[in-house]
Structure formats: structure tokens, C-alpha cells
């Protein structure tokens, strides 16, 4: 089976005075149709810029310096802007961390969802606004016919994120990029939003690129996980294998640094791993990579 998204040796960074400074140092990964793939890493590891490069929203001075991003057989980096625009929101959609800054404060949420249908499917506004009510209902917003008339500030954080998901899934994209979609939410609301993304994407067969710094959230959501460190994908494996037997030194340090629920009950309070003393030489971390061969995990999804 052919991958839906094939990122090959992606390099990006900025050029200054004839010199290239690389932020991503050759990242490669593939996402199969319907698969949920997680990118996990700390701030500055390059996970968000990777997603921005895929959806074509890199801002100057950041630029791609090399590599290819194949999506449905086409190289996104070579695509004219017009075509990228018709793809964005339509075949590839994105949910951001902060719904308040991603939504337009001056338009009702119904109007903003309807715009997706007008832009990408050529519907009339009247028709599109009816479809927006259905879209809100599909993300389980109570009384959607009233809620479409709300402005973003009238909604809670959880509801706003539901609106973002409704917008993102409006045109039935093949790939949904979710960049820390629940980081700003309370735990119980987070659980609901994660469940919603999981169920809707499974129903529609949408592949998800899920970006998070939270290993627990990644474990809940993803079938395969890539661990990023300093612009490199240092380890990639099926989720369960990654957590059970992390191979790369950095992954081991990261997992040890995490307080695990129930571990104090079983083993008493153990000192958390201090990644700086655990890893002798950070500069050599990116020299080794551990990429597990793709196994049956993605097979069942396709």
C-alpha cells in the first residue's frame, strides 16, 4: 500500500549571509491512509515546523532547504501556491493549540465553518450555513442550531476546540494535522476532545499527524510514534513498543523523566531521571537513530 504522506529527508531552516542554518536536519517519515502518527518532543525539537512545512504555512525567514513531501503522490514543496491553497483545508486540514487565536473573533462560528464549504465545495452561503449546523452537531456541540450564531468569545475552550475540529473535518480531509490540540484544556475536557478526534477520524478514515509534548496523550492517540530531538527524528516505533522498550538514549531519558501514575504505589517514590545527567553527551545524541521497521500495526488501519 502506498503511504498517504511521505516526508523524505526534509530539511528546513534559514539562510543568512549565504550560510544555511538548519533547524530540521533531514526528517523522514510516512503516514498510511487512516493511520494516526504521533510526533513527540520538547519545545524547539522541530515538531511544529515540520507540520507547518507540510501544510505550507512556513513563514519567512524559515524556508525549506531540501527534501520532499509527497502527499497523494504529489510533491507539496513543488506545488504552485494556488494549488496548495485549494489543498489546504480541503485535503489537509489543521487543528491548532489555541482555538481563540485561530478563530476569527469578528465572525460567528457558523459563518467560519460555512466558509469551508463555500471555498472548497462551491456551495451557496445559505446551503453552507445549513451544513455548518450539521458539522457542529457531528462534533457533539449541544443545540448546534443556536450555537452557530455564537462568536468565539462566547464559547468555552473545549467548545472552541470542537469548532476547530468541525472546521478541519468539514471537507473530509485525507490528513488532519493536530498540533497540541488539547494542551490548553482541562484534563476532563482534554479526554473528551481526544475521544472526539479519535472517533471521528476512525469513522471517516482520516489519517492524523498528532503533535504533542505529552507522552500520555501520544500513547492514547497514536499507532506509531516518532520522537524528535534537536531537529532529528531519533526514534520511531509502534506506540506500544516505544513505551515498553525504548531504544534510543533520549527516549529512555524522556520516559524516565515522566512521573508515572501508580508507580509510587508499586515501587515507592523514585527519583525522576534527570535527562542532563542521564545523557553524557548531548551533542552526540542525534548521531544514532532507531527507526523500527513498519510492522502489522498500520496494516489493520488500511
Amino acid at each position, binding site marked *: 500500500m502506498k503511504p498517504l504522506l511521505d516526508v523524505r529527508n526534509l530539511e528546513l531552516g534559514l539562510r543568512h549571509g549565504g550560510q544555511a542554518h538548519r533547524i530540521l536536519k533531514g526528517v523522514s517519515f510516512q503516514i498510511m491512509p487512516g493511520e494516526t502518527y504521533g510526533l513527540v518532543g520538547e519545545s524547539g525539537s522541530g515538531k511544529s515546523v515540520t507540520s507547518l512545512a507540510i501544510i505550507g504555512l512556513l513563514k519567512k525567514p524559515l524556508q525549506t532547504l531540501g527534501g520532499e513531501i509527497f502527499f497523494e503522490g504529489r510533491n507539496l514543496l513543488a506545488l504552485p501556491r494556488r494549488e496548495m491553497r485549494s489543498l489546504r483545508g480541503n485535503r489537509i486540514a489543521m487543528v491548532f493549540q489555541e482555538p481563540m487565536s485561530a478563530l476569527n473573533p469578528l465572525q460567528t462560528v457558523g459563518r467560519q465553518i460555512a466558509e469551508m464549504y463555500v471555498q472548497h465545495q462551491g456551495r451557496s452561503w445559505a446551503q453552507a450555513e445549513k451544513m455548518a449546523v450539521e458539522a457542529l452537531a457531528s462534533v457533539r456541540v449541544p443545540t448546534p442550531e443556536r450555537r452557530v450564531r455564537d462568536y468565539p468569545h462566547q464559547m468555552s475552550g473545549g467548545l472552541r476546540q470542537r469548532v476547530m475540529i468541525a472546521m478541519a473535518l468539514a471537507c473530509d480531509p485525507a490528513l488532519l494535522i493536530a498540533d497540541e490540540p488539547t494542551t490548553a484544556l482541562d484534563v476532563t475536557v482534554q*479526554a473528551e476532545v481526544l475521544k472526539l478526534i479519535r472517533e471521528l477520524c476512525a469513522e471517516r478514515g482520516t489519517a492524523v499527524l498528532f503533535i504533542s509534548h505529552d507522552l500520555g496523550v501520544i500513547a492514547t492517540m497514536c499507532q506509531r510514534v516518532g520522537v524528535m530531538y534537536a531537529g532529528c527524528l531519533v526514534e520511531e516505533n509502534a506506540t506500544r513498543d516505544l513505551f515498553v522498550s525504548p531504544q534510543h538514549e533520549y527516549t529512555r*531519558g524522556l520516559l524516565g*523523566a515522566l512521573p508515572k501514575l*501508580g508507580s509510587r504505589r508499586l515501587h515507592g517514590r523514585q527519583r525522576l531521571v534527570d535527562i542532563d545527567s542521564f545523557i553524557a553527551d548531548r551533542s552526540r545524541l542525534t548521531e544514532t537513530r532507531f527507526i523500527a521497521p513498519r510492522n502489522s500495526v498500520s496494516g489493520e488501519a488500511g
Partner: protein
Amino acid sequence: MDAPLLSVEDLHVRFPLSGSWFGRGRKMLHAVNGLSLDLAKGECLSIVGESGCGKSTTALSVMGLQEPSEGSILFRGKPFSGSQAPSRMERAMAAQMVFQDPYASLNPRQTVWHSLAQPLRLHNVTARSELSDRIERVMHSVGLTPEQAERYPHEFSGGQRQRIGIARALILQPEIVVLDEPVSALDVSIRAQIINLLLDLQEEFGLSYLMISHDLSVVEHMSDRVAVMFFGQIVETGPWSAIFSDPVHPYTRRLIATIPDPGAVLGLSRESVVEGPAQAPAGWIFADDGSSAPDVTVGPEPSELVEISPGHFVRLARS
């Protein structure tokens, strides 16, 4: 048992809502409704709950930054709030706070040295040698070098800034440190370092922590006792082991069940403690199961905290 270092008794905090006409028919937002807790010397008590449950308001009341509407706060048996409250200077010696975002709580135009020296000067430590000595010691204890005190807050990384936030809280050698989401703004690896540091400092100086957090895995790791808050009330409180291995209240169980913990999700750790419906002890019902948000402008239904095992209390109503 020793007398508690800090005790909060029947604390109520209410805020007026707008739209009143000269106070007539004025609606009040009930942020904290009859909260009582004790903090012993050297222990870490965590208050957990979601945004808006009143945990930060409680912390601000302890710090003297929010006047209680009713109830009292006692420090070593003496009033710590109300008309007989100690002066701000004395209060500062007793309790200090570490904030979630250290950058927002440090003056960007002062070097760290000045930020640390200022509270000492206000407390009549003015000799240059003593100032330097105490700043040096506190910098060492939070894992920074004294030379770094000459820098400005923007020159530090997030983890280092939180270390400075902790140094600032410790410089007056308080007995109580209120930790308001001390690690939630930090990356996983930095978070581990700060958690380790906080536990080391607690042991070294015999500090009492009142920690506000929504991250239950951090709470389980750090706390001696836990209080779960829901809309201004404690719904369950007890030793950390009781709360995490035998949660009774439906809200506590729901909170624990929703934590995305890798071990639980992948079925690597022992089976979940929160399977099956919550059971109230015979003769009692749960006054509020925490499944829906109550009206915050009226007080809660009558209920009481019932001790179901030593030190483990659950909010129940008579059936």
C-alpha cells in the same frame, strides 16, 4: 498529633457579579464554599481540580492576596487573615509563593541579584556582605551559580527561571511555600529536574508545600496528602495512597480515569483502580457527582465530609 502549621477553617470566598443596582438583588459568585484544611510541618498537601474550582482562590487567600468572605485562616494557631492578621512583612516570613510562569513574576529590568536582595532589604538585612552571602546560598540550593545572579531574567531558560522563582520564594526562609502549578509550563525533562529540586528542598529545609495542580501524575509523585476540589468544595481528601488507590467520590474517579497515562492506556500497569461505578457507603449518597457544573451563584446543597478510613474523607449527604 502536632498542631497543624496552617489551618483553614470554613473558608468562603464570594465575588459580586456585575449587573446589580446599588447592591440590591446582587448575585454573588461562590468561588469557595466552606473549605477546611490543615497543613502540617514538612508535608506536601496538593489541591487538585479543574479550572474554576476555586483552588487558586484558596491559595490566594492563604497568601493574604484575597480576603475571605467568611471563615478564618490560622498560622501556628494565630489569626492569619481578617482584622487580626499579621502585617505583610510578618506574613512574608511565613508563606511565599512559586508561580506557574516565573518570567511573569520576575522584574525584567532588575538583575536576579536585585530581585533577591529587595525582600531582604525590606526585612532589614542591609549589610552588603550578608546580602551576598544569603543570595549565594539560595542560588546554590536551587542549583544555580552565584555569578548567574548578575544576569537579567530574559537571559535564562524556562527551567532556570523557575529555579529563580523558587529562590525568590525561599530567600526569606518561609515555612510554607504555595506552589501554583509549579511545573505545568515546563518541558518533560525540565519538569523532572524541578520536581526533584522541590522534593530535595522540602527535605533540606523542612518546608511545607501547599501545591495547586491539575496534573495528577505529578501530584501522586510529590504529595503526602491530596484534596480534590469541585466547585468550591473539597469532595474528597486523604493520604495520597488512599486517593490514588481507593478513590471513592465519582468526581475523583473521573479525574483519575481521564489522565492520559502511558502505562494505563497501553495496559502496562496494574489494572485501573477506577473500574465500575462509584459506591457510596450505606446510608449516604453523593450530594453532587461532579458530572455537571452546578449554578455558581447559589451555594451548594448541604453535605458533609465523612471519614471513611483514617484521614480519608469523602463529601456525602444523608440518603
